[in-house]
C-alpha cells in the first residue's frame, strides 16, 4: 500500500510503548498492531483523532504517502 504508517516512529519519539498508547487511546493492542504493521485497510477519524491527541502530533506525522510503494 502506498500509505505508510509511521506509528512506531512517533511512539519512539514520545518514548511511549504500544501498551500505553492502547490504554490511553482505548483501542485494543491487536488493532494497534494491525495499524502499526501496515495491515490496516482503513482508519477511522475518531481513532486518528485520539492517537494524535495522545501523541500530541498531526495526522501527517503518523500517515505518509509514498508513490514508490504499491
Amino acid at each position, binding site marked *: 500500500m502506498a500509505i505508510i504508517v509511521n506509528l512506531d516512529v512517533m511512539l519512539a519519539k514520545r518514548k511511549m510503548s504500544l501498551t500505553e498508547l492502547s490504554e490511553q487511546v482505548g483501542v485494543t493492542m491487536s488493532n494497534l498492531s*494491525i495499524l502499526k504493521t501496515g495491515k*490496516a*485497510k482503513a482508519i477511522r477519524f475518531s*481513532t486518528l483523532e485520539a492517537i494524535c491527541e495522545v501523541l500530541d502530533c498531526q495526522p501527517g506525522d503518523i500517515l505518509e504517502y509514498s508513490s514508490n510503494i504499491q
Partner: protein
Amino acid sequence: MDLTKNIIPEEKFNNLILALFTLISVFIFWNGYNEYNDLSKVLNIESTSKLERLEFDTKYLKVSKAYLEDASNPKINYVTVLALESTPTDVTEEKVLESNFGFSKMTGLISHPSFLINDESESFWKSQIYLEFFYGFGSMLILCVFLIALLRINEKKQNRIFSKEIGKTFNYFTALLLLSFFLDMLIYGRLMIFLNETYYLGESITGGGSQLKLFIAAIFIFLGNVIQRGNTLQEEQDLTI
C-alpha cells in the same frame, strides 16, 4: 429483572445449543439403530409368530410380514410400493396371493400394488429396502452434523456470519444436497427398473428426487454467494481501526 442483559450468557447459550444438537444426533443414531433392528425383524421371515403382523415403512416402500393360516407356506413377506403412479391391472400381486394362498384380503394390497418377496427377488428387495433406510437416516445425521459444524465455526469466528469457513460449509452442504437429490433419483430409478423388468409396469424411472431439495439447494447456492461476497466486506471491516 434486567431485560437488557442476556438471561443466559452467550457462551453458555452457544454450548447449550451445541449440546442440544449433539443430543439430537445421538437420538437419531439410536433411533436408527432401533429401526434397523425392527427392519431386520420384519425381513427375517422365520421369526414370524402366529397372528403376528409386522410392518416397516421407508420412503417408497412398505414392507409387511404376515402369518397366514391354512396355507402351505404360512409365513410370507411382501412389499407395498407406495411410489407407483398407476395400479397395474393385469399382474397384481393380489392375484398371485389369491392363487397361491387362497387369501384375498390383505391390508395394503388394494390401495397400492404389493409384491411378494420370493427367493428370486429377495436379494433385490432387501438391498432396496436397506438402501432407502440408510439414505433416510444418513440424510438426517448429515444434516445434524452440518448444523453442529456451522455452530462451531460460528462460535470460533465470534458470531461473524460473513466468514470464508461458513461460506465453504454452505457450499459443501449445497453439494451434499445435490448429491442427495441424485442419490434419491438413483434409488427410485433402481426400484422402477426392477419393477418394469419383472412386472412390465412401464413406470417412469425419473420420478424420484425431491423437488424441494433442489429448491433448498438453489437457496443455499444464493446464500453461499452472498456470504462469500459479504466476507470481503467483513475483512475490510475487521481491518478498519
